[in-house]
């Protein structure tokens, strides 16, 4: 266990808070001081408000003194990706388009975290409108990886992973459309969970690709991820894709659900392009499960090679539609260069959006345009059915799949200028979004040069409990998360 408050886990801090060994104000002050000290090197936040954080902490302490604690998250500083609405706080999506936007309402996850007593701490940087794999597409500048500040933290939720790894929050929330929680978690050496599509409400999440987007936690440990998931999951009538599932006690499942499990190794995920050090680390994780009596089976997901293309058709099509709302009329950036009312749209959008967002809107508009819809969008939706079926077929034989999270470790800021090269970072994560499955990235070692490696476990729909239990079994024997970057 780390002696610094800001590197401790929710489970540990909640116990200290309940035992009155620690106050939320002390904890929040420690996180604020840490943030002020390291933020010049990391730049994980778009904004934070110290006095607001301390006021929330004081309220939490008052609840505990009155014997009215809301549970393990009461008084814990949690950072939110800057695509999740908090009333009265900025909400920028790391875009010039929303540079001055202030949320008029709370996202459902925000409401739930407030109910759980969490100290909502700061707005975390990301790729603009969550489009990217490196956080370099932020209009406000890139975030650095705490393990090597010349490298990217991954993305799009790179601020969420970097802030947690650097001790600037105790847990964070991100959103995952094609790997945007799991890939940055892997690159920064923390746990990242993407829930089953429909488990966590998307109300108040800035929409990128609505059929793929899910909010999920970043945490130091699987147990902490289970605690946060339990607080944010659940049906919400404000999200029509929200599912009426019963929410189990995820934390209790960590110890009540015991193996041995049957794990599938998709052979397509260990093909060309995988960094040999990552392959070796994941092989060791496989060997661990085998040593615990788990049955390891090679499985095949034959449509894996079509995931990337299917994803880029569907995600850009949905993005081009979702981002149509940014027209300079009701909110967001309005151009002063426009000559007439119609011109406002094209100029406000040209000035407000960055290059990657424009690129994806153009591609999405194209694949939806008259004459091409069937050839691209409809066909991609059909291939999506086949991709989902591949996973469901595999789950007839196994409880979960084990793969690398990212084919490469954290790369240098500015290294990948070609959009297509950057899109390939997501090859192991996007199938999960297309199929709507839950998946978690857990730290599974370091490269020789000291960069974190993540292993991905993919679970059956709605089986977050067993997914977390499987991940927890590995983590207990491999406490990589007790190592922290030196800043």
């Amino acid at each position, binding site marked *: 266990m780390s002696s610094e408050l800001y590197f401790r886990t929710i489970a540990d801090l909640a116990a200290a808070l309940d035992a009155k060994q620690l106050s939320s104000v002390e904890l929040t002050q420690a996180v604020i001081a840490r943030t002020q000290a390291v933020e010049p090197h990391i730049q994980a936040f778009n904004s934070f408000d110290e006095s607001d954080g301390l006021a929330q902490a004081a309220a939490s302490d008052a609840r505990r003194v009155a014997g009215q604690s809301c549970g393990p998250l009461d008084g814990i500083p949690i950072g939110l990706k800057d695509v999740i609405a908090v009333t009265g706080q900025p909400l920028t999506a790391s875009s010039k388009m929303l540079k001055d936007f202030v949320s008029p309402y709370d996202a459902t996850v925000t409401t739930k975290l407030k109910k759980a007593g969490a100290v909502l701490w700061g707005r975390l940087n990301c790729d603009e409108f969550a489009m990217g794999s490196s956080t370099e597409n932020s209009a406000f500048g890139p975030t650095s990886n705490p393990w090597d500040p010349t490298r990217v933290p991954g993305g799009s939720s790179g601020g969420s992973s970097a802030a947690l790894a650097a001790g600037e929050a105790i847990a964070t929330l991100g959103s995952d459309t094609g790997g945007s929680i799991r890939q940055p978690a892997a690159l920064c050496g923390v746990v990242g969970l993407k829930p089953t599509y429909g488990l966590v409400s998307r109300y108040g999440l800035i929409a990128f690709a609505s059929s793929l987007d899910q909010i999920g936690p970043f945490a130091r440990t699987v147990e902490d991820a289970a605690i946060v998931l339990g607080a944010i999951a659940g049906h919400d009538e404000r999200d029509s894709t929200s599912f009426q599932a019963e929410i189990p006690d995820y934390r209790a499942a960590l110890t009540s659900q015991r193996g041995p499990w049957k794990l599938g190794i998709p052979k397509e995920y260990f093909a060309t392009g995988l960094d040999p050090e990552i392959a070796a680390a994941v092989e060791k994780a496989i060997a661990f499960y085998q040593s615990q009596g788990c049955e390891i089976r090679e499985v095949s997901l034959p449509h894996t090679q079509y995931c990337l293309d299917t994803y880029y058709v569907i995600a850009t099509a949905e993005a081009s539609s979702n981002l149509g709302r940014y027209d300079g009329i009701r909110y967001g950036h309005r151009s002063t260069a426009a000559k007439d009312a119609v011109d406002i749209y094209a*100029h406000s959008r040209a000035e407000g959006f960055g290059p990657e967002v424009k690129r994806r809107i*153009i591609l999405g508009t194209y694949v939806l345009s008259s004459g091409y819809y069937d050839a691209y969008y409809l066909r991609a939706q059909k291939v999506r059915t086949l991709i989902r079926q591949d996973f469901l077929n595999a789950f007839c034989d196994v409880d979960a799949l084990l793969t690398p999270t990212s084919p490469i470790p954290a790369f240098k800021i500015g290294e990948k200028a070609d959009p297509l090269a950057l899109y390939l970072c997501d090859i192991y994560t996007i199938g999960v979004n297309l199929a709507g499955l839950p998946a978690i990235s857990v730290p599974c070692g370091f490269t020789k040069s000291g960069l974190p490696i993540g292993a991905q476990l993919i679970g059956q729909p709605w089986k977050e409990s067993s997914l977390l239990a499987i991940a927890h079994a590995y983590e207990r024997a491999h406490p990589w998360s007790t190592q922290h970057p030196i800043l």
Partner: protein
Amino acid sequence: MSFPPALDIDHIAKLARLALTAEEKATFAQQLGDVLHHIEQLAKVDVTGVEPTAHASPIFNVWQADVAQPGLTVADALRNAPAQRDNMILVPKVVE
């Protein structure tokens, strides 16, 4: 099935309501050409008789009681408007 060749960037930019510079048009046309070339491999998949998936959640229709809920105040709703007057959003004249 054959995929169409290069995209008409001017037409698409107009549909997308994006005022692109000549430089952006050239860059995007080339980059999107590369991406579309990659995407062409979707044509190789046999999708005969396959139903499309809109999203992976097993939900197909959702009904809600038609009851008024508390909403935003006028001030909150207009808080982010680029220009406003008398509880309305200001826009340039559309009809002369």
